[in-house]
């Protein structure tokens, strides 16, 4: 008997089932296909502009910062101002996301843009979020050449751009978006849900920012919901 067979046999003996009972199979198939939502907090359920306000407040509460800009053309100035405010060099890295590639970076001549995954030597990175969740101020990022996962963790400063229309009320909406984009039962290699900058409270439960990931997290919300 293989280990797999042994685990299944013991499980089924304990549960008193054979595994082929039709009602059980139907219950499981129905839940997987129907993915019922459960309890969704009312907190995020509000009109689009108020939802953006809530999102910004929750990012703030998680020790991140957020700002709104009218169009993608405003991103370079916002990014440069943010980096200057931290006394950081105006050098950032981003992936192949077409929305980031299309940003008119030249509008800030001092900005130096690098492309691709990080090897750990970058101070700042820019990613484009797949979506965001107003309920908790959470960003949802997906892996791939567009937004390499290393950019989310290795640099000291992480700036995340998100379209206002992609700021969802709740997790269920953002997850439904993933299902639609990647197909039922299929996921990208990594989905990072990020709520604030890295932290640790392992030393006498004192909260300290910048444990292993970025010390600063800044969100730029683009456009109107």
């Amino acid at each position: 008997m293989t280990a797999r067979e042994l685990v299944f046999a013991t499980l089924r003996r304990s549960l008193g089932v054979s595994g082929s009972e039709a009602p059980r199979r139907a219950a499981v198939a129905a839940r997987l296909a129907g993915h019922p939502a459960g309890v969704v907090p009312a907190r995020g359920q509000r009109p689009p502009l108020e939802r953006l306000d809530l999102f910004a407040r929750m990012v703030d509460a998680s020790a991140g910062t957020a700002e709104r800009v009218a169009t993608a053309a405003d991103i370079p100035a916002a990014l440069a101002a943010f980096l200057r405010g931290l006394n950081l060099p105006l050098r950032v890295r981003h992936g192949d996301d077409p929305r980031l590639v299309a940003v008119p970076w030249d509008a800030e001549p001092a900005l130096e843009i690098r492309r691709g995954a990080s090897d750990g030597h970058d101070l700042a990175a820019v990613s484009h979020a797949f979506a965001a969740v107003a309920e908790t101020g959470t960003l949802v990022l997906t892996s791939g050449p567009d937004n390499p996962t290393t950019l989310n963790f290795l640099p000291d400063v992480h700036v995340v751009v998100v379209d206002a229309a992609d700021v969802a009320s709740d997790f269920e909406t953002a997850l439904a978006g993933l299902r639609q984009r990647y197909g039922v039962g299929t996921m990208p290699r990594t989905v990072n849900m990020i709520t604030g900058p890295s932290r640790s409270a392992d030393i006498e439960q004192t909260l300290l920012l910048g444990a292993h990931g970025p010390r600063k997290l800044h969100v730029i919300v683009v456009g109107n919901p």
Partner: protein
Amino acid sequence: MTLASHIATSSRFKDNARAALADADLQDALSFVEVNFIARRREVADRLPEFEALRDSARDIKDHTLAHLDLYLEAYEERLIAQGGHLHYAVTAQDAREIILDICRGAGATTVTKGKSMVAEEIGLNDFLEGNGITPVETDLGEYIIQLRHELPSHIIAPAVHLTKAQIEDEFRRAHTHLPAARNLDEPTSLLAEARGVLREKFLAADVGITGANFLVAETGTSVIVTNEGNGDLTQTLPRVHIVLASLEKLVPTLEDLAQLLRVLARSATGQEMSVYTTLSTGPRRPDDPDGPGEYHVVLLDNGRSSMIGGAFRDMLRCIRCGACMNHCPVYHAVGGHAYGWVYPGPMGAVLTPSLIGIDKAGHLPNASTFCGRCEEVCPVRIPLPRLMRSWREREFERHLSPATVRGGLALWAFFATRPRLYGLATAMAARLLGWAGRARGRFSWLPLASGWTRCRDFPAPHGETFQSRWKRREKAPLPRPGHAP
């Protein structure tokens, strides 16, 4: 180097607890637990009106999954393999250790980084890898600290909660000899910065990264880790091979079910709305991915759980390892996690440890409870921890594992308790006698047969009357009129 850290000392709980109570550093460190965790959880739970309903939902999801675990496991396996992952079944802890060693050897690994994993502690993975020439590096700050000290975690989400800042500074000075001896480590931030610097090099050099999993999602074949530091993500993103070590009961059906559980996990654990990093991983690096591991393995540990699911302790398999039960436990506050003698401390450990290592070895743990019920009150998946501890006590008694003094005492008590008249007579006499003997001081500093109590505190002298006789007297007396102050 061989460590003995995973050998259980649960059978010596009483000695462990006595030592813990006398440990001044430990008592200092523990004073933070009661204050911080409880207040933070209360605050964040109060902010979410749906929190109690979410706890019901979380409990129901776990119950439903456990009742259909074989089928969700099939679905999970199918999605995982379809997306390029490898699934390994481990019946025992030894099986899991060997599977992981084989994968590491196959990757030609000399160092592995590790994200925090209680299941890795359960199977004693670090000692085993080290014994086989592979260096494991813990990367969670708390886990890193206790690895330097060759200790077990004393808390399931805050492994170094038993240490003071000064002790951590001493440890860093001892371990990081390549850094200037005169450096200033007074502030917690400088300790954190030093660990970050040391571990960053380890992340970049590691061949294999091992993480645990908070959840496995059947719908998508996904493993999920929930962290605050980002160490788990560096652990699983940078090396060539990512190994996920998870136990069977981590499965949930769908992404929506995951969202329900995430809403109660961080709030119950650290009092955050969400932990900083919730990471969903599915399979290895895709053909056009610029980063991520080339291989993705999930080692699924049974270690008795598939049997447990059919027994009296099935509810325990709902546990999502938030630590709220120990954060709210007066016994944990007093003695800390190490006294419990194995990997899982506090009320959840008092129920789970006997299931995993045997009630004969862990019999003290379910007895180390006042049954105050706070653990059940805060458990996000509503595990009836006091009832389960009581079940263990009953089993221990049935199997004649309790000490002779306990059995003798209970037999004596049962003799009187089943004879009400005799009981009334005996207690009335005892109350009168003790009331008379203690009439001068109102308390006893020593009593025959009660040294277990009087060794640590005085025993209050009764007033000479039992509760029952006083009750009878009041029943006969006229009721006080409402509005009359007594």
